[in-house]
């Protein structure tokens, strides 16, 4: 049976201010499924993505997350990653002095060492071949490997670098947080093709987006709408199309009153 990510009644505050962001989120994503999480800006979508990976900027006040049978909230961010969870960040930070290649090799080696403490890690030639083939797939110039991570990258380059990491780390469940934002149509196509090439029975994807646009490339089976920290609508691809046509006003009207 494939791995599942089960989010149950999740409540989250901003750690520093105590401001409540998520107010009871329920969502289950299984390997092999493609989900879309939509919603107006500020509804809590990115917060959910960050909480799933354990960003210390947020504090979980109630609820539970089970990933592949394990209590996710008790795991450190690195353990979550090694367990097969991946987040393509909306705003990846730049890390001066750390090259893309060095970083990805360390990430792979950390996986190998976690499984076998005596592991010497991936041999350099094998890693170089792997990285080159993944970069080719994403139409990335090989010089990318030697650049400092996200330092001076354009918006599109950052997003491609995120998908490159996803392709290299081979997760069970991947969350794409607004990966389409700021991309021109060519970059969107390349990034989407990259994601699609990874799709299959072993990969579950949660596409977080404000717009329908990326869903034309990465077709979801399930669509969820988040508003004010809760998932308020669940449906199929038709729900995304409806939002594309009508916008989020009806969501606001329907659920604002319940506040």
């Amino acid at each position, binding site marked *: 049976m494939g791995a599942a990510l089960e989010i149950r009644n999740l409540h989250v505050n901003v750690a520093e201010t105590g401001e409540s962001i998520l107010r009871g989120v329920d969502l289950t994503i299984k390997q092999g499924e493609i989900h879309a999480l939509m919603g107006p800006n500020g509804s809590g979508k990115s917060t959910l993505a960050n909480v799933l*990976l*354990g*960003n*210390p*900027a947020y504090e979980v006040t109630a609820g539970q997350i089970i990933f592949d049978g394990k209590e996710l909230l008790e795991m*450190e*961010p*690195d353990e*979550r*990653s*090694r367990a097969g969870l991946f*987040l393509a*960040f909306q705003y*990846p*930070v*730049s*890390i*001066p*002095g*750390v090259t893309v290649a060095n*970083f*990805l090799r*360390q*990430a792979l080696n*950390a*996986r190998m060492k*976690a499984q076998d403490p005596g592991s010497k890690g991936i041999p350099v030639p094998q890693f170089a071949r792997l990285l080159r083939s993944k970069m080719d797939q994403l139409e990335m110039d090989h010089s990318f490997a030697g650049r*400092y991570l996200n330092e001076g990258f354009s918006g599109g380059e950052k997003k491609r670098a995120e998908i490159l*990491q996803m392709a290299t*780390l081979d997760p069970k469940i991947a969350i794409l947080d607004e990966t389409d934002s700021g991309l021109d149509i060519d970059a969107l196509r390349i990034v989407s093709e990259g994601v699609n090439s990874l799709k299959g029975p072993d990969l579950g994807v949660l596409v977080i987006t404000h717009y329908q646009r990326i869903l034309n490339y990465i077709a979801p089976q399930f669509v969820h709408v988040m508003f004010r920290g809760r998932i308020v609508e669940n449906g199929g691809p038709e729900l995304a199309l409806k939002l594309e046509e009508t916008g989020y006003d009806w969501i606001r009207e329907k659920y604002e009153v319940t506040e």
Partner: protein
Amino acid sequence: MVVVRRRPGAAVAPGYTQANVEALSAAHDEPQWLLESRLMAWDIYDDLPMPSPQDEEWRRTDYRSIRWDEADKLIEANGANVQTVPAANLEPLVGSGEGGTMIFVDGKLVKYEFAPTMADQGIIFQDLRTAARDHAELVRKNLMTRAVKTTDGKFAALHGALWTHGVFLYVPHGKAAELPFHVVMYNSQPGASLGHVLIVLDEASQATVQVEYASAQADTHSAYIGATELLVGDGGNLKYVALQDWNRESYEFSHQRARIGRDANLDWVIGVMGSRLTKAYLELELDGIGANGRMSGFFFADHNQMFDLDTQQNHNAALTTSDLLYKGAAKDHARTLWQGMIKSQPDMQKIDGFQACRNMLLSDTARMDAIPGLEIEADDVRCSHAATFGTLEQEPVFYLMSRGIPRPEAELMVIEGFFDELLDRIPFERVKERLQASVEGKIVG
């Protein structure tokens, strides 16, 4: 000399006398001119008071914890040989061989190699004392006359009077030393050492030099009172790397100055890792039109270390450029201070000077200060400075962790990344790797 006692056994100044100077010079059978120059320096030393916290340059750096009664004992070679030197310091800089190698242990030259291809070009690479005999005119003309002067301060004067050992490199007109020169000054015993580096590049010549300072662990105090003189003639090109890793009971007081001629270039990298306290003056004199100097420095202070790096970029001619980037980290109770000054002489137009000091504080109890300064007396110039302070940011650490990298490694990567830009300026890959490892040691240790 009157030695003021603060408490029994605690001297406020080294206990040297003129007899020490005479004895040192006689022991090495030095030429008369050298003895005379030492005695002149002694007179200056004798006249000057010890620096005190009332002096502006010393206001933030209280070195008075030094026990001079231990630290002033001039180290004498006791037969320790090259085998006492850590393997890392002995490792060649590049695989293709070195132009010359000099290893000093306790001030004594214990290993000396000089490639015949270099000697054939008329390049001189000798220990300073031998050079003072064999090439008296050349040494006499340049030793503490043009760059570091005995009048620069108490410790510069003391150095002039009592320097114990040194290296002399001379590259004649139009010659390029294609292989690097490698000098190690290692002390196996505690006490005082006064090492000198004198590099003279004649017109349109070129060289790359790395000097490493280190010492064995000791329970008693040591003093290193050093001078570095880099003289780059018109059209010359010098790459100079100096790495310091004294033991934690050592106090360094050093004067380092470079003079750059017309259209000449200096690429000057320093690394400060060791010592209990370091007070270094690092000064760039851009003398010729079109002279360029790049000063790069990295430092990492931990435990109770105190580093005080005092830099100057002096634009003494038009169309000169200088670019300084120092990057440091401090943890535990360590303190660091960088004071930088860019100066231009009046009416030196079209100069371009930049200085930046970037600091990473790794504990709440460490303290880092950076004081940039500009004194510009011309109007058509481009000079700017920057000083930044940060801590280890959690956002990049989280990002790396979210890819499966455990926290300790993630933190290491971010801190090493901070230094990478500087370590990249070291022209030797192996040395860069060694320094990465020592940065790692400090982070983890």
